């Protein structure tokens, strides 16, 4: 273990850092298993950031390392500009987090659990108990024992616990787990409202659809390593493009396109053609395809660029592509 790399080499705080989370070479091993492998992660402030990966990819372990729930074996990291673990107390003062399933003392009410957590924070946190409960819609059940709560209610209470510290950074590990569709909708709205207040929300999930709807940027982690990161729009722009063509003679159209550089991946389907274009292909190629087909006397009824989803892109870039194929 290179313990010295875990220390803050600069020795100075930089709370004005543009990154809410910054890691370099972060590594965590469990025996021979490298759960977090040399992770370089930059989470910009003020956005919803998705941390995506298949089950067992090391998402939760990275979060546990960031929050000081377990120790890193190598690398450096900072939260809100404060190097951790050296200034863990300063960094976590404005961080709220849910790790795994949120669990509380079942014999206490939701409000009493929050009182315990607020007591460990600054004095002002005690004044935030009521607003936090109100914000997550738990005022009516705040005085019911947590053992009577549903999973969704515990998730809400977990978010309320996060809000006690008036956090600049929220780290939510699978916050949609156990929520019904209405609950997921509420959670999505809450995340967006938190971001709109200038907070950073780092969202770990394997629900790609939810992440795509909620987040501005993502990092993809696989086998403990971050393999892609950036704004979703930019990442998807670099993904392979698909164009669907509905035409009069699909077989003839395929033969024609196979003679062109962009016709190497053409599938004939019932309604026409499906053309797969390489990543980075410009939209002018679509017009060129149209010109070629019309010029050869083929009637084109519909020509549509299919937007690549985060899910299909995720499958392309992670090792799970082979498994799902």
């Amino acid at each position, binding site marked *: 273990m290179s313990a010295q790399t875990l220390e803050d080499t600069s020795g100075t705080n930089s709370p004005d850092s543009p990154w809410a989370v910054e890691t370099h070479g972060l590594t965590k091993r469990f025996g021979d298993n490298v759960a977090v492998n040399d992770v370089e992660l930059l989470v910009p402030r003020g956005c919803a950031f998705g941390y995506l990966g298949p089950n067992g990819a090391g998402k939760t372990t990275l979060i546990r390392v960031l929050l000081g729930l377990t120790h890193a074996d190598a690398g450096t990291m900072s939260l809100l500009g404060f190097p951790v673990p050296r200034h863990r107390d300063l960094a*976590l003062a404005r961080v709220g987090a849910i790790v795994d399933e949120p669990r509380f003392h079942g014999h206490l009410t939701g409000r009493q659990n929050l009182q315990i957590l607020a007591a460990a924070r600054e004095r002002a946190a005690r004044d935030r108990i009521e*607003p936090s409960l109100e914000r997550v819609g738990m005022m009516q059940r705040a005085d019911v024992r947590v053992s009577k709560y549903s999973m969704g209610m515990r998730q809400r209470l977990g978010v309320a616990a996060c*809000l006690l510290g008036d956090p*600049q950074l929220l780290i939510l590990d699978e916050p949609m787990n156990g929520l019904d569709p209405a609950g997921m909708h509420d959670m999505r709205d809450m995340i967006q409202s938190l971001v709109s207040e*200038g907070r950073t929300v780092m969202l770990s999930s394997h629900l790609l659809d939810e992440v795509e709807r909620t987040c501005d940027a993502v990092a993809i982690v696989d086998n403990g390593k971050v393999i892609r990161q950036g704004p979703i729009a930019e990442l998807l722009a670099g993904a392979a493009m698909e164009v669907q063509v509905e035409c009069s003679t699909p077989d003839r159209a395929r033969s024609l396109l196979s003679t062109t550089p962009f016709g190497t991946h053409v599938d004939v389907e019932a309604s026409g053609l499906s053309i797969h274009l390489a990543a980075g292909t410009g939209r002018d190629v679509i017009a060129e395809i149209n010109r070629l087909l019309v010029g050869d006397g083929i009637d084109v009824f519909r020509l549509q660029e299919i937007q690549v989803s985060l899910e299909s892109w995720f499958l392309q870039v992670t090792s799970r592509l082979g498994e799902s194929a």
Partner: protein
Amino acid sequence: MTSVFESATSTNAVGSDATRDRRGSWLPNGAMIATRFMELRKRRGLMAALIVVNIGIPTIFLTIRLILHVAAPKSYGPAGGYDIFTGIVAGVMYVFGFIVAATLGCTAGSVDLTEGMFRHLVITGRSRTALFFARIPAGLMIVVPMVAAGFTIVCAVCVFAAPTKLDYQGVTVPAGLSLKGLETWAADHPKEVVCGLPYQGGGQVNIPACFIGQKGQVVTPPGAPGLNSVPLATLKADAVKVAQQDYVDYSQHFLSPSTSLMVKAGLWIELEAIIGLIVGLGLGSLMGQRTVAVILMIVLEIILTPLLSHAVIPHLINVQRGVVGLATAHLEPGGLPRAFGGGGGGGVSRLVPESTTVAVCVIIAWLVVWSGLGAWRMSTRDT
């Protein structure tokens, strides 16, 4: 509602609160202690069990004695008194107080982990050591008053329901007599003394066979010569000899416990309870679970400590001296029966010998080491 969140976007505010509230300090703040106290106090099942063991059992025992005495005073003696007090304190409250406190300590040391709350607390940035140490005063705030409540009930009953006459070895004797007074009383009641009080020999006492009956009367077995055959002067002289020999033992019998003894005994059982709480807390934190920790504490108190306190094992005698139960037994106030058995009245001790200084050092070492182990484990535990 949003006003309390307004500073969220201010980067300058980051860490300022944490600096002000000394979040990295190993010392817990008052609110942490208060909420931890609330968390423990709200465990209804645990609290009920602790109250039953610590307050309920002595109360029920004394209540039954009170009822029996009121219903049949000739068959059942007074509910309170010195003997009842010493028996309950050394035989029940001392051991039960430890177990009660240890159970609470093991619970306080492990439930945050088992109930998943520890993660939430760590994420606040608060020092893990402070999270651990908040449990000690919180636990004491429960254990100390609870032990005190049980002890107060025992004291009250033993003082206010104490016998009006001292029943010494089956003979009703006035309490608090000096040696001269006891000799005078013995000369006035020679038959009761020579037939009822123990005599170890060494003098000229040679009384025909007799004993004190169940109703306090002098009884001579059928066919025995009877006390009337002995001259009264001889009888009185023999009674004085018996009184002189028994005086040391008699002087340790009282109608009710003295204030001094009650204060010392109260402090002693509180000390035992505090030790139980802190050792249990450390063990619970170290193991991360309650049940096994509680079982180990009970085994320590009711099996290992009595065994190691009395059986002198030459090669392990210093290990035996390191047992905390033995150390606290050595600090037991005089006038109580020896803890864990082994002699009574604070007289000759059959415990493994140990100086008071060593006993105090052993107790301090146990408190420091177990607190340190618990705090270390909480600070290093992955969660």
